[in-house]
C-alpha cells in the first residue's frame, strides 16, 4: 500500500470504518512510514481529539418548562382525529372536543334535512291538487259521454256540477 492510498483512507481508518484486513495493512504502513504517521497524529491531535473531549452542555431548565406548556393533551392518534392543526389554539379548543364535534354534526344534518322534508311536504300538496284536477276533468268527460240529449243539456249540467264541486 502506498502513501496516497493511506491518505485516502486515513479518516475511515481512524474512525474504525474499514474492514479488518485493510485496517491491518494501514497499521503496518503507518508503523514503517513517518510521513503517514505524522498525518495521522496531526489529524488526531488537532481536530479529532479536541472534538471528542468536548463536553455536553447543561440544558437550561427553561427548555422543559416551555415544552410542558406546549405538550398536546391526550397525545394519541385517536385524540388527534379531532384536532385541526391549522386552527389557532386560543378560542377554538371547543371545536376539538368529540362531544362538540358530534353536536355540530347533528346541527348540520338538521340544517340539511329540515328544508328537504318541507320541500317533500309541499310536493305532496301539489300532487293532491293535480290529482283532484284530473278527477274533475275525468268527471266532465264521463258526464259528456253519458249525456242523452246533446251538448246544451250537458253544458247546463256542467255548471251545476262545477258549483257542486266547489261547494
Amino acid at each position, binding site marked *: 500500500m502506498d502513501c496516497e492510498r493511506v491518505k485516502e483512507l486515513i479518516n475511515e481508518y481512524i474512525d474504525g470504518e474499514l474492514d479488518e484486513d485493510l485496517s491491518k495493512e494501514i497499521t503496518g504502513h503507518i508503523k514503517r512510514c513517518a510521513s503517514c504517521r505524522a498525518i495521522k497524529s496531526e489529524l488526531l491531535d488537532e481536530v479529532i481529539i479536541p*472534538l*471528542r473531549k468536548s463536553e*455536553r452542555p*447543561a440544558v437550561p431548565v427553561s*427548555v422543559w418548562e416551555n415544552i410542558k406548556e406546549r405538550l*398536546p393533551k391526550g*397525545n394519541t392518534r385517536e385524540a*388527534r382525529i379531532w384536532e385541526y392543526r391549522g386552527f389557532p389554539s386560543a378560542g377554538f379548543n371547543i371545536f376539538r372536543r368529540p362531544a362538540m364535534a358530534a353536536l355540530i354534526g347533528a346541527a348540520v344534518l338538521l340544517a340539511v334535512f329540515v328544508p328537504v322534508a318541507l320541500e317533500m311536504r309541499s310536493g305532496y300538496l301539489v300532487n293532491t291538487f293535480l290529482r283532484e284536477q284530473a278527477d274533475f276533468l275525468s268527471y266532465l268527460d264521463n258526464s259528456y259521454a253519458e249525456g242523452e240529449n246533446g251538448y246544451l243539456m250537458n253544458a247546463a249540467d256542467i255548471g251545476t256540477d262545477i258549483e257542486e264541486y266547489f261547494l
Partner: protein
Amino acid sequence: MTRILSNLAEGPVNDISKGTIKKACRGDGGACEEIYKGYSGLVFSVALRITADRSDAEEVAQETFIKVFSALPDFRFRSSIKSWIYRIAVNTALNFMRGEAKKRQKKVTYDDDIFTPQKGNNPASGLERKENEKAVRTLLGRLNPDFRACIVLRDIEGLSYKEISSVLNININTVRTRIKRARTHLINYIREGEDHGL
C-alpha cells in the same frame, strides 16, 4: 394505533422502556418527562453545536421535543428511538439555520460563554476545559452547517458513518466525503490559517 401499541408490548428500547413510550403516546406527562430527561442532553448539545447560539439552541431543542412527542405514535421502531430523536434534532437545527438565521442575516460566531458543561461530567480542569472548548468552537466555526452536522455527529456524539447516514438521510459515501473534506479543511486552516470556506 392498536398495531403500534402491540409493538410496544414488551422489552426496552435503548434506555427508555417501551412502556414509557406507550404512556407518552397516550399523553402521559411523566413519561414525556422521562424521555426528555433521557435525550435532552444530546438534543441540546447537537442544537448548540450546530446553531452556535444558546437561545437558538433552546428554541431548536424545544421544537425538537414538541415534534418528538407529537410524532411518537407514528414511530415505527425501524431505527432506535435515539437515532430517530437525533434525526429530528439535526434536521430541526439545520432547518433553523437555513431559515430563521438566514432571515436575520446572522453570522455564526461561537461566543465564549455559550457552553456551560453538565454537572458531574467534568473530568477536565477548568482551564483545560476552556482551552478545549475554544479549540472546538474555532474548528466548528470554520464549517458550514451540513459539514458541521457530520463532524458533530461523528466526533462529538460518536455515531458511526452508517448511523450518520441514517440520521441525515444521506448516502454513506456522502458521509465519508463530508467527513474527509471537513477534516482536510480544518487541518489546512490550522496549518496555514487559510479559510477558503466550506
